[in-house]
């Protein structure tokens, strides 16, 4: 319940600085909810794949520093 508040603020902040919505997910899953866990993982990976490679916050150490 505390996390819900913190997460709301973080999600808004990340989207505010230009991280695409959909890269950050939050779910409540109990240890008994295996199916929900599986579904969520599929949903999240699909959503992130659909967005394609991240454009920001990516460090490339091959670049000449």
């Amino acid at each position: 319940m505390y996390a819900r508040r913190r997460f709301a603020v973080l999600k808004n902040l990340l989207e505010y600085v230009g991280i695409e919505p959909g890269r950050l997910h939050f779910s409540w899953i109990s240890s008994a909810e295996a199916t929900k866990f599986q579904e969520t993982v599929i949903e999240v990976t699909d959503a992130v794949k659909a967005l394609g490679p991240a454009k920001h916050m990516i460090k490339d150490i091959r670049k000449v520093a």
Partner: protein
Amino acid sequence: MEAIAQGIREAAKKLLSQGAVDCVIGFAQGTVPMRDYPYFAYTPEEADNLTWSRFCCNNLSNFLVRREMGEAGKVAIVAQGCVSRNIVGLIKENQITREQVHIIGVASPGMVDRGKVQALFPLKTITEVTEDGEDLVVKGKDFEERVPTKKVLRQNCYTCVQRNPVIVDEMIGEESEATHGGNIDKVAAPWEKLMPEERWEAFSESIKDCIRCYACRDACPLCYCHVCFVDEARPQWCGKTQDEADVATFHILRAFHCAGRCTDCGACESACPVGIKMRGFTSKIEKDIRELYGYAPGMDLEEEPPLSVYKPNDPQEFIK
């Protein structure tokens, strides 16, 4: 302004000569224009060096947790609205006790943004700036001009909602209008109106000059962690390079760590040697905290910090 400064000096002398406090934390006149600096008066004689002006841009409450001398003793501190709100925050976060501080309250006149004044005189060297009524008198080697003070205040001062201290032991001068008249909600989170791609550009542009000196963090009364996340070595959360990803990680996470605690005092922006305007992103967090949880940090000693409590009906449409 000089009357207030005189009042501060008198109050400080009294406290020090009575032995009521060990030290009075205020400001003294700096050696460069528009840079009055945090000063620690231990004797009534030293209290003569105290001043008060529109160039007092540090948040003095920072020193309540960063001082090394005489840490055990009681101190007096000069506090306007935002500083008093940070004192409230520090008390609520168990960093200090109310009994340890004697608050010499002053109404904030609004502080000057040095960068704005310099920008009026591009590439020129400003040698002296003095306050004269509602104007600043700006002098250089070959010029002298008057600038209306209200045109060159820090952005946060225009939208300040609490110019008078929220807790006080003695007040110097009169209380002022509560606000400077600006509406924070009209200017907070300036990039909300942009498209996602433009937002990153705006954010990235705003931090591009960062040299990672961490003056913003070190000037902030919220950043009292003994080891900041950015200094943690095991694990190392954040890279040390000038790569945009590393620099952005620092700024985003620092801002987030201040969520629900930031009083918009502007000390970070005033401390920054390269003129980064952190409020471009910190104001978004504070806006959310106001809108989602109806909270303004440091306004009273009782209200629970917004990220340490919850309500069953908190917004959660983002949760699947």
